[in-house]
């Protein structure tokens, strides 16, 4: 709610057009939600109409079938710990990279940045062997550690630009005060990095939560499965039984969608800040 400098006339025609487009954009999501409340016959006859009567038992069935509390928890654990790892490690590293004058650290920086353009999928097979040999297979940690390693290049890239834009004077005065590099980092630099950390965390949490390939390959048993695996598991079984499958899809996307609706202001500004700075 900033005060705009100009007393611009409200462009009503434009606004109307945008609202029409927005309705079109929202239509698929509306279709997804409304189908869950219909019988299959109704869904086939009028896919976009409102349901005659709301059938909520579909959700109860889907909830039970997917073992929702369990898969939700698995998703949450993976996302939570991945976020911690992919924030703290690149933060430390980007500060080191930004300030170090050593040739070795420059070389290492290049190696990490190369990861930005190397598609992660090509490394899957050796990675699978590696995870096996470390006895991490079928543990949530396998996915966490892969998430962290995959996001390191992007986050370092994002953070280092931010760190470089920080004024050196603050740190210098800290080091005169006798504070070591590590101390300066944790006491002074890290708090300053908050905005960029927030936007990275938001970006990354979307990726982690929606990741499918990692869990598909590294989590085999149902106890360890994440939400999307349960959705995928049921596609063959129920794909023409809308009342059973659509609620699963909704439950699959609901947590992030709700999170987004509540936090949208921060999410949008976070993404914007992260990308424009980077």
């Amino acid at each position, binding site marked *: 709610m900033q005060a705009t400098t100009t007393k611009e006339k409200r462009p009503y025609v434009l606004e109307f057009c945008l609202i029409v487009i927005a309705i079109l954009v929202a239509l698929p999501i509306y279709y997804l939600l409304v189908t869950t409340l219909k019988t299959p016959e109704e869904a086939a006859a009028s896919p976009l109409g409102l349901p005659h009567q709301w059938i909520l038992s579909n959700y109860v069935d889907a909830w039970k079938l997917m073992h929702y*509390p369990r898969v939700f928890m698995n998703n949450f654990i993976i996302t939570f710990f991945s976020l911690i790892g992919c924030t703290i490690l690149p933060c430390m590293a980007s500060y080191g990279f930004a300030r170090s004058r050593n040739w070795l650290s420059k070389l290492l920086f290049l190696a990490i940045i190369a990861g930005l353009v190397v598609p992660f999928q090509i490394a899957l097979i050796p990675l699978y062997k590696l995870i*096996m040999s470390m006895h991490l297979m079928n543990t949530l940690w396998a996915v966490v550690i892969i998430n962290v390693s995959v996001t390191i290049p992007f986050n370092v890239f994002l953070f280092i630009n931010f760190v470089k834009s920080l004024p050196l004077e603050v740190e210098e005065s800290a080091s005169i005060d006798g504070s070591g590099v590590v101390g300066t980092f944790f006491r002074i630099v890290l708090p300053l990095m908050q905005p960029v950390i*927030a936007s990275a965390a938001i970006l990354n949490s979307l990726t982690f939560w929606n990741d499918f390939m990692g869990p598909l390959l590294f989590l085999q*048993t149902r106890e360890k499965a994440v939400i999307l695996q349960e959705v995928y598991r049921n596609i063959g079984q129920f*794909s023409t039984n809308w009342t059973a499958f659509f609620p699963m899809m909704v439950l699959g996307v609901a947590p992030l969608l709700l999170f987004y609706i509540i936090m949208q202001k921060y999410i949008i500004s976070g993404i914007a800040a992260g990308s424009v700075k980077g």
Partner: protein
Amino acid sequence: MKKTLILMASLMMVSSLVLSGCGSSDDKSGKDGSASGEKKTKIRIMGYNKEETRKSYLEYLKKKLPNVDIEFQFIDLKSYENILRTQLAAGEGPDIFETSGSGAVYANADYVEDLTNASFTSKYNDTGLIRYQGKVYTIPLQSWFEGIWYNKDIFTKQGLTPPKTWDEWMTIHDKLRQAGIKPQAMGAKSWEPMMKQSMGMLLNEFYAKPENKDFDTAFSDGTKKVSGNWNELVTKWTETIQKGNITKDMLGIDYDQAQDEFATGKAAMWESGPWAAEALKQKNPNLNMGMFPIPGLTEGTGWLIGGPGSALSINKQSKNKDAAMQVLEVTSTPEAQQALIKDNFGSSFLKGVDVQLPAEYQDSAAAFKEGHVYAPWINWPFGAIAEDYGKALQEVLTGGRTVEEALKVLDDKADQQRKTLTGK
């Protein structure tokens, strides 16, 4: 901003704790019943047939083996091989997994246990045991077959009977179309249905001939090619595309959607197998259906696509081989076989198991009697080369390839897989 973030995080934390609380209490109540066995061995079975088609069988295993905790993992065929092979290559993988035929691909890489001398192997008829280099690596489950499901009510109404020849079948399509009914439903988004229907023609007119008896062996060795042998027949088969029985629309439809069309009476025919019967009846309890074999050019019993069906193998690297063997031991009993057949009809290869042909399959009885059930590609010791052929046929349908080119795809792929398999 920071405060909101913290608030959200803690909210999520709390809610997930509450959620998991419910979850774990659910689990406990579930486990109380079977808490008798102290140390349960965990056995993971991986399969590409859905859990519902193995339900009775899994329940039977659970009852018979209280000390084994069986976990069944269904993976859609679309990614089944990908996942299984990655896991095996990494020295992991399920203890028992579903495969087809001799398991040659896996035996060749030394991934599966040699079952030749296992106590239960001798309980099977020799026809069911497909050997690779003289050894048995797989235990056959019930036989597998598929033909053309048809809606009896629609047929009666239109005065139609199951076809005895290819031309009759084409005429049936025409008549249904004229009556405003979609003749065939097909989930051609998958590469399978077209591949199988074209094979139907080949079974009748190519494989049925004595001189082609050993064609698949020769094809596997590389001494014979499909190009030059199959061209005429597959071209003849494309008649069904030209007539508009198989349309480009179908390329956007998957298996379940096609099943839905047939179940709801929107289409009169659909090619599939017994495993679909339960789902069809569930969808439409009034559906009156039967299955006929794919007819040939001249009058005959027709042929069903099929074979020994899927089989189970034991992962050589399994840490619970004893328990896995026990599972196969129990599988090799008449009760377990009947349980398998209950959810997915087929004949058993276990000695002394009699199976009654249910009414739905009476139209195929003659084909069964003649042994007219075969699927060429499961006898090829390669990976998924039938998939490439099926995809090439999709391209024939879209007009992107000729039949000759599609067959060449199959030959080339076989050459290349042979090279991968033998290392030269």
